[in-house]
């Protein structure tokens, strides 16, 4: 997807290990979001950022932390991975809030915790 890159694309990790997912944007957008997508639940917001060092919790933030030290990078860390965190993780960016701006999503990171 133009302007937004997620890494890695796939990862398998063991229960109890820390994992960091990276979202990188070249659009200079202020807002960045981390969602997880699971069957039957759809996209659920984990954390979001409204500027460098400005972050807030979403609907399903337990077990996750985030950091944004630069406009272009938003990191999601699973502090101690559990099997319930097996999911597809999507990053999204937005120039501002509201539907007029919309979200642009990355291609996702497929994480498996064994």
């Amino acid at each position, binding site marked *: 997807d133009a302007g937004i890159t997620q890494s890695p694309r796939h990862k398998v990790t063991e229960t109890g290990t820390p994992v960091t997912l990276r979202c990188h944007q070249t659009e200079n957008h202020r807002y960045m979001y981390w969602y997880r997508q699971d069957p*039957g639940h759809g*996209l659920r917001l984990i954390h979001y950022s409204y500027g460098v060092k400005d972050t807030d919790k979403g609907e399903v933030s337990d077990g996750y932390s985030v950091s944004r030290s630069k406009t272009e990078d938003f990191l999601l860390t699973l502090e101690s991975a559990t099997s319930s965190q097996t999911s597809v993780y999507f990053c999204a960016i937005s120039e501002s809030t509201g539907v007029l701006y*919309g979200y642009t*999503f990355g*291609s996702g990171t497929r994480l498996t915790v064994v």
Partner: protein
Amino acid sequence: QKEVEQDPGPLSVPEGAIVSLNCTYSNSAFQYFMWYRQYSRKGPELLMYTYSSGNKEDGRFTAQVDKSSKYISLFIRDSQPSDSATYLCAIDNGQNFVFGPGTRLSVLP
């Protein structure tokens, strides 16, 4: 109660059919409604959005909001195999977007 609910399907239709996808939402104060399309192993992409009540048309796609029923719909005319994807409705709750679980659509040639 979830803020937005959606029948997950799956839904299979023959090419050329009219498709109707639907969601319900919980809060009558919501004003902005969106439809995203997600192809397999890709991120969602915005298809169209509507404000308040009424219809919005874009080519073969029509989005409709019925605020009295708290019901939003997406109609696809002359459906094509390339329309096969998961369609997610979303609402703007004033803080961020809340997505439905998506309806998986297959359009069969």
